[in-house]
């Protein structure tokens, strides 16, 4: 499933020709330089909003917003200190992480058995459920979130991380079931039969045979669930007020405020983006695998 690493290296990486069994036609050096330059340029363009924000928030407030912008300055971290001291950023950060972790774990715990069952039970019931999940995945978010707002008020759980996490479990369920089902479908059914001959029940098969085999698949689905929960603005905005506010909602509310507050919002954006960059590096092969599994067989 992770065929990511198997492609042959195409750029000439040293003075010695590639010793692989298949003779790879060597590209002219000029072309390698061209490709490298293009890749660097694209990476730079894609990162430029992050770079510019990081530059702006390390400038002193009086030069940060000058037009024309300044390109030399003595770096300062006042915006970060102020963000930490004058707002409840740590609380919003904690809320974001709590919501993402809780909703990911619950979505996996209830999604794994369902996806396993759907991959092994032939017939129209499974298909109907998968079609329902597809439609749920595509629904306009407001159609479920606005009633959830009303419901959470009525139940007295409005503005709690629990309410946001519960909503996100429901919203992300359909996608996780699709993704996990595609991974389960790649595991041969003969394994189930062998385990049953050894006297395992379905639940034991799932727990003892499937889950260990599904490690990468579960990790991939978990990364997607975490990512979706972590990014969610609309649901968190509608279902929270102050107590359960998440970082994306916080940053959006800081817009249109005074310049120091804008700079704090920028600092918050940078603080949120730094771990995300690390996450992107770790997650890239799983995201490719997941999207591959989802697209080829979905």
């Amino acid at each position, binding site marked *: 499933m992770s065929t990511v690493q198997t492609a042959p290296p195409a750029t000439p990486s040293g003075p010695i020709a590639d010793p692989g069994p298949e003779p790879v036609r060597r590209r002219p050096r000029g072309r390698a330089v061209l490709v490298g330059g293009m890749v660097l340029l694209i990476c730079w363009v894609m990162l430029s909003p992050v770079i510019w924000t990081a530059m702006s928030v390390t400038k002193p407030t009086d030069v940060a917003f000058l037009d024309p912008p300044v390109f030399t300055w003595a770096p300062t971290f006042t915006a970060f200190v102020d963000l930490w001291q004058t707002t409840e950023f740590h609380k919003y950060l904690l809320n974001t992480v709590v919501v993402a972790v809780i909703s990911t774990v619950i979505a996996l715990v209830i999604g794994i058995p369902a996806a396993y069952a759907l991959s092994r039970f032939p017939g129209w019931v499974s298909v109907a459920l998968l079609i329902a999940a597809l439609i749920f995945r595509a629904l306009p978010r407001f159609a479920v979130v606005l009633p959830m707002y009303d419901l959470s008020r*009525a139940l007295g759980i409005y503005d709690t991380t629990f309410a946001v996490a519960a909503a996100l479990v429901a919203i992300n369920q359909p996608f996780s079931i699709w993704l996990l089902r595609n991974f389960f479908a790649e595991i041969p059914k003969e394994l189930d039969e062998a385990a049953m001959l050894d006297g395992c029940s379905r639940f034991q098969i799932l727990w003892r045979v499937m889950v260990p085999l599904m490690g990468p698949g579960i990790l991939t689905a978990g990364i997607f669930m975490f990512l979706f929960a972590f990014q969610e603005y609309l649901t968190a905005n509608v279902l929270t007020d102050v107590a359960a506010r998440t970082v994306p909602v916080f940053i*959006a509310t800081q817009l249109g405020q005074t310049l120091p507050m804008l700079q704090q919002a920028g600092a918050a954006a940078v603080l949120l983006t730094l771990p995300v960059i690390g996450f992107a590096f770790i997650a890239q092969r799983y995201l490719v695998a997941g999207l591959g599994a989802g697209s080829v067989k979905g």
Partner: protein
Amino acid sequence: MRRREFLGLVSPSLLVMLGLLLFPLYKTVEWSLQRVNYGEPGTFLGLDNYAQALSDPRLGRAVLFTVGLTAAVIAVLLVGGYLLAVLVNGLGRSRPWVLGVLLVSYVVPNVVGATMFSWLFDSNFGGVVNYLITELTGQEILWFTDPWANRVMVGLNTVWFMLPFAMLVILAGLQGVPPEVVEAARIDGATGWRVHWHVIVPSIRGVLTFVSIISIMDVLRTFDQLIPLSPQAPQIGNESIMLYIYNIAFQDGGQQLGLGSAINVLLILLIVLLLSPFIRDMAKEARQ
């Protein structure tokens, strides 16, 4: 697998979806037929909300904006995603690093990414793009108040955060193309773009369709990025359908929940219509 085992394994997920998706959907349909405020029982109106929604020119503009944005973005995503995927696919040891960098805009929350993106163009924030364009052309572009400039900026931002997704899916597709086929085409004398156009593109058509469907569904949902990028969206006609629903049902002080729900129901019908070919395919597969 026995029916009882199936039900046992599926039921927790089924309960969550029934309680937290189906019940709210039922509420939306009910509200769409009522005049209603949050927390109060509504009064029955019949189809008045639908009539009002369909005759509101603001909805018409929102649909036009959303559909135009979707068409433009999908075209760029397919071409750009393909080129980028081919480029990345040819990389060697540097590939994980390049992928990691390219994924940042996909992984950062939309609203945060759009905020950072908006600062590149915002003269109030000393925006560097804004500055360079003014220096080079001598013209100052009003990115936030001129409708077309704003549309271009929103489009650029949407491409910025969706391109990595398109690239990843197409990359996964490229890795499924048998190398022998490409080699055979090369031996037959096909070169450069002819190999791509006549051999590789047709063999990953399924993947390209998948990218289109998912991207269409996602761009139709455009909402988050407009909050920082288009603070005056209703005035300059750059409101998306979702932003319009948010503004009339939740913001604006109007709380026209019934009207918002009616538009939601219309959107659901449209989405089911768009998905119907795939649903038919799945049902056909199941019957065999």
